[in-house]
């Protein structure tokens, strides 16, 4: 009965989102408060309905109710409890329901936190959200219903794909969807504003927290996914330029551009048309990603089981929303008034450069991802565009961007002083040069490009610090005065500094790992020693062990430096019994920011194993930088200015002004 209630609430959610797709829209046109008031109430109700539905499915997983086809296909009664929870979204149907849950969650958030918005804007945003909700609820109910039943119920499930039986699955998809789907709010804001025909600086201020939240979660989701693939797949790679990865990376790039262009629009009311277009594009790329991942039109190492009918359904949704939004844009955009003017060397100019590069970078990734598909459709030729393409194009494009990063925040709005900015940055530049070459010499060897890459990474890091240094004016004022000024800076300034610092850290990690990692594949017999990254690994032998739903063969390695044992690790190969499927569990040992990565191959005749050992210098910087960016996002999000705009006519005391007073 619980399951059927869950199924029914999902159907009811379709009914409510249908109503919300129409009634508040009419209300906004007629200026009718009652009809508009339906939007927030309805959005919260739809969220509750989908939440019940999601809870029912989760319950079915936890109690192993195999009368649900979805549970039978993706769960097993002996699976550890945590994977029973995370298994809910470890498959196509369940993950679509999570997608939907997060979508309506964002609609509900707009309803709750949107009190500072004009009524018609809020109503219209929820209307557009409800269009998306309706489309995806229909998609779930008609093509991928997680509530399909089996009768009689089988006695045992088919188990969750072993690769997904990992903590990574519990964390990665929810974070990723919070990002992906979060951009739907920006899309809805853009479409709603186009419907209203009123787009100004205030609009940019209102969209900013949503962009920031989605961007922050997407950063976290991508980083988490990358780390998961790194330790779980046993290949030692952290980014493959795989279509599925690109699908999440493109919205991130476009979202980063949006974050910056919205800033220009908020301050100067310039770049209006462009910002609205970016908001539409970012979510369109999210939808495109969903299509690529679910339809199986591209070969990927990460995809779900795919189904052409689903692909067509999503393609229709994609065309409808993207096509509709662009049509609306084409119709309304010419009516927008042009904004403020600015000189090429100015904060605005720097942000335009940022947008130009990020958009072109997004386009190259898009071309690389879709080119095989287009070529096959047109000529039938099958090709693949590999990592070298992306490394070459994307890598080269990032150089001018990273070079410009520290300048941006230093330039004044409207008309900047490049010379002044340079004067403030020369210390950072000097430090970056010293640190880059220094690290290069310590690591010794490697192409000259690497030193250049390291310098660029440090340049972004020190540039971010220099920005804070000069804003607080440490160079002129006594330390304690400057410190007080520093603490008093707006939080978004810290957010910017953290994000720019983080990008530098990530670049540093990427350059270090690509240039200085070592990889060796060797046959090791018991007692043999291998060298990697200045450490020696002794292979102590194998043992067998049994887990809850797998058996494994584990190899033990002792790691020593200069004859002193410093660590040890187990690396193993598992066989999951229900599916008879093998996985590799690499042994990973962390030294500072660097890691030793040991994965087992096949046994060799006469005892011993093929062992693959990587030394990954500074690899943790890659994800560490993302974490720093994410922290920057949250700091910015907590900036009081993002909550401003509560109309005074509301009798209820809003929370925001109180917090303001406290700050």
């Amino acid at each position, binding site marked *: 009965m619980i399951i059927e209630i869950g199924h029914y609430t999902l159907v009811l959610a379709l009914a409510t989102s249908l109503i919300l797709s129409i009634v508040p829209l009419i209300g906004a046109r007629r200026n009718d408060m009652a009809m508009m008031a339906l939007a927030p109430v309805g959005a919260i109700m739809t969220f509750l309905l989908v939440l019940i539905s999601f809870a029912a499915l989760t319950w079915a997983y936890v109690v192993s109710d195999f009368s649900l086809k979805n549970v039978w296909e993706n769960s097993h009664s002996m699976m550890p409890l945590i994977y029973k929870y995370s298994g809910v979204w470890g498959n196509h149907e369940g993950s679509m329901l999570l997608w939907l849950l997060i979508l309506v969650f964002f609609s509900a958030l707009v309803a709750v936190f949107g009190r500072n918005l004009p009524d018609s804007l809020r109503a219209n945003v929820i209307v557009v959200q409800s269009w998306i909700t309706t489309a995806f609820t229909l998609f779930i109910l008609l093509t991928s219903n997680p509530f399909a039943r089996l009768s009689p119920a089988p006695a045992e499930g088919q188990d969750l*794909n072993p*690769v997904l039986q990992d903590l990574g699955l519990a964390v990665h998809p929810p974070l990723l969807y919070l990002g992906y789907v979060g951009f739907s709010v920006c899309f809805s804001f853009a479409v709603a504003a186009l419907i209203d025909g009123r787009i100004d600086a205030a609009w940019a201020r209102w969209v900013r927290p949503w962009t920031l939240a989605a961007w922050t979660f997407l950063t976290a989701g991508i980083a988490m996914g990358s780390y998961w693939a790194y330790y779980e*797949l*046993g*290949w030692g790679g952290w980014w493959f330029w795989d279509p599925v990865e690109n699908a999440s990376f493109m919205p991130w790039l476009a979202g980063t551009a949006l974050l910056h262009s919205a800033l220009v629009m908020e301050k100067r009311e310039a770049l209006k048309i462009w910002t609205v277009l970016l908001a539409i594009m970012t979510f369109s790329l999210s939808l495109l990603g969903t299509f690529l991942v679910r339809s*199986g*039109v*591209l*070969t990927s*190492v*990460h995809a779900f*089981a795919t*189904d052409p009918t689903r692909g067509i359904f999503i393609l229709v949704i994609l065309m409808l929303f993207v096509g509709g939004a662009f049509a609306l844009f084409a119709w309304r955009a010419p009516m927008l008034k042009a904004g403020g003017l600015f*000189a*090429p060397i100015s904060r605005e100019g720097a942000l335009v450069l940022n947008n*130009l*590069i990020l958009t*072109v970078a997004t*386009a*190259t990734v898009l*071309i*690389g991802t879709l*080119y095989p598909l287009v070529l096959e459709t047109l000529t039938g*030729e*099958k*090709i*693949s*565009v*590999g*990592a*070298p*393409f992306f490394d*070459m*194009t994307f890598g*080269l*494009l990032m150089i001018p961007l990273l070079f410009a990063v520290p300048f941006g925040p230093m330039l004044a709005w409207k008309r900047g002083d490049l010379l002044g900015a340079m004067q403030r940055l020369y210390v950072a530049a000097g430090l970056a040069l010293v640190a880059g070459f220094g690290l290069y010499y310590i690591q010794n060897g490697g192409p000259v490009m690497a030193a250049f890459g390291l310098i660029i990474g440090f340049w972004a890091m020190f540039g971010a610090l220099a920005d804070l240094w000069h804003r607080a004016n440490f160079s002129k004022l006594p330390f304690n005065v400057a410190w007080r000024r520093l603490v008093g800076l707006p939080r978004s300034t810290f957010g910017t500094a953290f994000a720019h610092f983080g990008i530098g850290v990530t670049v540093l990690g990427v350059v270090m790992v690509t240039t200085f990692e070592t990889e060796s*594949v*060797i*046959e090791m017999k018991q007692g043999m020693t291998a060298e990697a990254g200045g450490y020696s690994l002794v292979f102590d032998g194998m043992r067998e062990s049994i887990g809850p739903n797998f058996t494994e063969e584990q190899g033990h390695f002792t790691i020593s430096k200069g004859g002193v044992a410093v660590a040890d690790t187990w690396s193993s*190969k598992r066989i999951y019994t229900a*599916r*008879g*499927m*093998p*996985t*590799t569990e690499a042994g990973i040992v962390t030294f500072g920011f660097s890691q030793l990565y040991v*994965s*087992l*191959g*096949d046994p*060799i*005749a006469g005892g011993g194993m*093929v062992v*693959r050992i990587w030394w990954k210098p500074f690899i943790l910087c890659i994800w560490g930088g993302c974490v720093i960016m994410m922290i920057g996002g949250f700091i910015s999000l907590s900036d009081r200015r993002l909550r401003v705009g509560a109309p005074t006519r509301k009798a209820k005391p809003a929370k925001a002004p109180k917090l303001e007073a406290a700050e």
Partner: protein
Amino acid sequence: MTRKQKRLAIIAGGMSFILAAVLLVMFALSQSVAYFFMPSDLAKTEVSPGTRIRLGGLVAEGSVKRGEGSTVTFSVTDGSETVPVSYTGILPDLFREGQGVVTEGAFDAATRGFVADTVLAKHDENYMPKEVADGLKEKGMWQHGEEAATQ
């Protein structure tokens, strides 16, 4: 410079940046695109040694041999033709005889054998790489029933 000239300069700058990017993309595409072949395609078309391609098909039964060190040799077949492949490194977990596989690499000029540097078999045991599935369907080695079973 007048305001108009300034504007033109900015637009020209942006355009030339985009133009540079387009040229870069075209250059990169011409450099790093790998064509996909099935063994019987290779019988029809000559691929010069050193050209990077993707070779897909089924791992022929009984063909996997572990040689010196961690080098493995096996054959990729599509039912009519077979191509011997050698690969140094650790094979993916799901690499099995009779299963679908995609290898990437080039033909060696001296030995005429295919030397792969990447071997892909997917996470999902039901998985058949799309290109391989399409290729096998054309040859009638892959039934729809099997495909439905993966759902």
